[in-house]
């Protein structure tokens, strides 16, 4: 299967498939929907971080006969949400391990009454001592999970790290920290559930992964496949925040639906969503690095720790990706990465765009600048001397068989940003200006698709079918939540089928109608699922040519005529394909060795940052992003992904701080959780280099998460350039800049305006 040099639909800026509805305000998000006889659900949550539930009492000022109340005792099947380990209860049973843990569910026909009754449920606890930090968990003063608080650990080794120190010309150490980050999708989590003995459970809601929700519902309700149905509604942003939590919410709504005999809607308000749902894992990354006298890496030794919160959820896979991205796009003969995910009594952390990579890429790219400063080498030159090239091996000894063009990306990024000239100019201007400016660089990769044998395990099935009234439908369980799934996959199908884009649509994201093509995560949609859709489409054309008289070339109408001919004989027009791994993918899960990812996207980002020494505010003035993501399937959507990811990365670096109280979010209002507004985002210049990847749809690799990896280190490297002070922790707020600058510089610094 070749990657076509000229394509008609792929590569063109076709209109977003569901764009018109969104622009008309006609797109239906879950809170826009009603079901006949619908009730409303609300959740009673723990207000302590750890303890035994002593009693649950219902205040008599409320007439509880009007309500339906659900507790763990009402769960028909297993009281656990099924992700990787089934340790998270659907509803707390006898004990709680974090604040905001769901304990009791309430439903009532009146939305206000449902909500008001929450405070009438009185829960008494015997509190236990909670732990909140990685360090407390490591010390095991309290064991809050398993035998030792350890949710997961990895050891990745290459060569012999310990032999390198003695020969090193330089040894540089550093510790880097990243805070939690909230997704802040503008649409809060929500679900509507129905239950009947005949149909089982049906849920509609805001979600990324219908079949994840499906799996948990089956287990919680102990129902067979044909008695559970999950339908995604138009979803207003997700970014990983609707990868796992919707399973919890769907089970809650469905339990209330089952007990009440009515459809139940549960839509969180912003305060509840912020306090109770997942966030990005906080991380602590310690580096110890050996280099020779030319600044070439001899050994990378990393100690990585993440805070997983009270339950495992996705901590193990986040840790995995964090580990596999921790050593950067560099060639190094000796590597050791010791990674651990620790349990605490915080609200569980979960997936968020980048999935561990932003944390460790921040650390590695900051550390590279610290190394450069320590050994007296230009930070760009240091990187160039260590970049991976074709044929080099990564930390897992994966051979770079696809082209690696980091030098070209770096050249272009430096040229577009006028990096060296600006650094020189700023160095002079900073001496006399209250506003200090600097330039910072980050180089990185992001592995596309699931790690190692993950895609084989997923065993995705996808396809296309054709309706009698002349529409092609793409059959996938992958979802649209703004990133362009609907458009990309219909483009791919239209291209591979050789028909008009307007005649292809997505089948409803309904487990009753589409196969399991895997979750919409891990930057896999274009590359992996798109490839399945491409293959299924090509397969259909072959079948039509062989069995329905379709010619070598044909019009759209001739295509559909052939489909009808085919339908006469076969009864349906359907073509599906299963995932096939690219050749040579060998991965050892025990040793963390081999082909970690089938493909990598590569990038170099440059930030220009201004630090105002009157207010200690740092602002990104301009940003350049150069990347290689294989074939760009849709230029507008691709640029939109990069720009959006960068804006989130800017927030991660400079604005977005989760303030904690007893392990839950204290600043749980939009007025106090600060994301960049239209006045804060810098001009962002996006450039693509294209090297088609032959195993991805029309040459595409993953793109969605890459842009969130680069901004934070580029920005903090720029701040280091601007101020001369190293900041190693994000978010870096003005208060932190003040503390760092005041600590390293004399208080009385004359300002010349």
């Amino acid at each position, binding site marked *: 299967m070749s990657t076509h040099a000229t394509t008609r639909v792929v590569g063109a800026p076709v209109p977003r498939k569901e764009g018109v509805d969104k622009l008309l305000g006609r797109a239906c998000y879950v809170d826009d929907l009603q079901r006949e006889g619908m009730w409303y659900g609300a959740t009673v949550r723990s207000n302590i971080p750890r303890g035994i539930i002593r009693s649950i009492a219902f205040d008599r000022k409320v007439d509880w006969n009007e309500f339906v109340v659900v507790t763990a005792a009402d769960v028909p099947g297993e009281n656990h949400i099924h992700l990787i380990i089934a340790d998270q209860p659907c509803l707390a049973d006898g004990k709680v391990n974090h604040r905001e843990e769901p304990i009791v569910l309430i439903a009532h026909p009146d939305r*206000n009454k449902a909500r008001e009754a929450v405070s009438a449920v009185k829960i008494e606890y015997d509190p236990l001592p909670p732990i909140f930090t990685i360090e407390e968990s490591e010390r095991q003063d309290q064991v809050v999970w398993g035998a030792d608080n350890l949710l997961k650990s990895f050891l990745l080794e290459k060569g012999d790290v310990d032999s390198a120190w003695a020969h090193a010309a330089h040894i540089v150490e550093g510790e880097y920290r990243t805070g939690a980050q909230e997704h802040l999708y503008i649409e809060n989590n929500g679900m509507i559930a129905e239950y009947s003995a005949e149909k089982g459970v049906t849920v509609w809601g805001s979600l990324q992964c219908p079949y994840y929700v499906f799996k948990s519902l089956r287990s919680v309700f102990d129902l067979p496949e044909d008695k559970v149905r999950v339908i995604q509604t138009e979803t207003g942003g997700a970014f990983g925040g609707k990868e796992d939590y919707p399973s919890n919410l769907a089970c809650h709504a469905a339990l209330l639906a089952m007990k009440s005999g009515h459809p139940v809607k549960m839509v969180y308000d912003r305060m509840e969503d912020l306090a109770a749902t997942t966030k990005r894992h906080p991380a602590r990354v310690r580096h110890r690095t050996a280099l020779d006298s030319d600044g070439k890496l001899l050994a990378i030794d990393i100690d990585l720790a993440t805070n997983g919160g009270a339950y495992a959820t996705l901590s193990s896979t986040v840790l995995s990706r964090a580990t596999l991205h921790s050593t950067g796009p560099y060639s190094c003969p000796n590597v050791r990465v010791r990674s651990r995910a620790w349990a605490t009594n915080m609200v569980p952390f979960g997936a968020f765009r980048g999935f561990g990579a932003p944390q460790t890429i921040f650390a590695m790219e900051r550390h590279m600048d610290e190394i450069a400063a320590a050994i007296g080498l230009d930070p760009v030159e240091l990187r160039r001397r260590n970049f991976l090239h074709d044929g080099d091996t990564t930390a897992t000894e994966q051979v770079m068989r696809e082209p690696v063009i980091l030098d070209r990306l770096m050249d272009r990024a430096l040229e577009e940003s006028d990096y060296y000239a600006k650094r020189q100019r700023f160095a002079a201007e900073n001496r006399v200006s209250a506003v200090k400016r600097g330039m910072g660089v980050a180089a990185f990769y992001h592995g596309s698709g699931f790690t190692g044998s993950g895609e084989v395990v997923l065993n995705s099935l996808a396809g296309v079918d054709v309706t009698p009234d002349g529409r092609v439908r793409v059959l996938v369980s992958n979802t649209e939540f703004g990133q362009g799934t609907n458009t990309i996959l219909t483009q791919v199908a239209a291209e591979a089928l050789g028909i008009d884009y307007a005649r292809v649509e997505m089948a409803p994201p309904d487990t009753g109608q589409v196969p399991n093509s895997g979750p919409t995560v891990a930057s896999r949609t274009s590359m992996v699922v798109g490839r399945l859709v491409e293959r299924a489409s090509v397969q259909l054309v072959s079948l039509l040519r062989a069995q329905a008289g379709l010619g070598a070339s044909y019009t759209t109408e001739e295509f559909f005529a052939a489909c009808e001919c085919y339908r006469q004989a076969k009864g349906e027009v359907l073509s599906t394909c299963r995932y096939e791994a690219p050749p040579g993918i060998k991965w050892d899960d025990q040793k963390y060795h081999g082909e970690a990812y089938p493909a990598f996207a590569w990038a170099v980002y440059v930030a220009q940052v201004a630090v105002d020494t009157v207010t200690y505010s740092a602002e990104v003035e301009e940003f350049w992003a150069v990347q290689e993501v294989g074939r760009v399937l849709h230029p507008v959507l691709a640029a939109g992904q990069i720009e959006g990811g960068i804006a989130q990365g800017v927030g991660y670096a400079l604005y977005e701080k989760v303030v904690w109280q007893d392990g839950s979010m204290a600043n749980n209002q939009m007025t*106090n959780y600060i994301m960049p507004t239209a*006045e*804060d985002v810098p001009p962002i210049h996006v450039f693509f280099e294209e090297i088609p990847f032959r195993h991805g749809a029309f040459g595409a690799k993953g793109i969605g998460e890459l842009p969130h990896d680069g901004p934070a280190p580029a920005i903090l490297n720029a701040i280091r350039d601007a101020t001369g002070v190293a900041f190693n922790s994000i978010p870096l707020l003005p*208060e932190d800049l003040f503390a760092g600058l*005041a600590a390293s510089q004399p208080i009385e610094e004359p*300002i010349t305006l």
Partner: protein
Amino acid sequence: MRGNAELHDLIAPGNLTAVLDLLAAEPGKWTPIAGGTELMVAFSAGRLNAPRLVSLWGIRDLRFIERREDSIAIGAGTTFLDLRKNAAIASELRLLARAASWIGSVANQSRATLGGNLVNGSPAADSSPALLAYDAEVEMISLRGRRRTLYAEFHTGYKRNVLAPDELLYAIHVPLRFARYRQYLRKVGTRRAMAIAKVALGATAMLEEEVVREIRLGAASLAPYPVRLRRTEAALIGRKPSRETADAAREVLLAEVKPIDDIRSTEPYRRRVAANLLEEFLLGLQREGRGA
């Protein structure tokens, strides 16, 4: 959304006299609501402790901007968008025009009122530093009549003010003489838009022969309510702006202000930035004085 609309009574008599009648008849029972940009946030959060509300929205007698001989009178019901669109305010009360552009967003500015901003009494109120630096007066009205007081004496504690239970804030009177003074206003927030002030400083000063004859400093988020920094002002009267003066004034300011740690910022940061803003203003005066 945690508010229950059925638990609140809201009426709109539509004219000032009717509202004053109501406040006189049942003092303390009715909460006036103008644009709602504060009270409705509390309502949505389930924290509006006001079972009965009386709407001021649309009462023409409260929404005006009048240029008088030596002051501009602004009705308490005037929105920030009204302020931004007014030519007299743009040219003669430019700190107030600038403050108006800081309030929330365009959608907030079309509803938030100057009166609401002052009566809500947040220590971070966006309009307060400018009004303090301009020596504004507030006029209060009830059936018993009208009275005025300096805005600087309007707040008496955290979210407490001198309004009697039967009184409404009627107008804010801003003297025009400061139009020719040196002026300064800077707000430090969490981001460029939609930001609550961590610190804000407004200043007006009149110099004669390079010496400070008058100075007024209005500060937000440095005390339980917006305040004049009188001790710092006193330390600057009769002084020539210079590095030495700025250093000395900085010390007085650091001792005078009482910022706190809260969910948005820290006490040391607020303290330091407040001092930096003062220094920026003073060194700016010095530079202007030299004709630089």
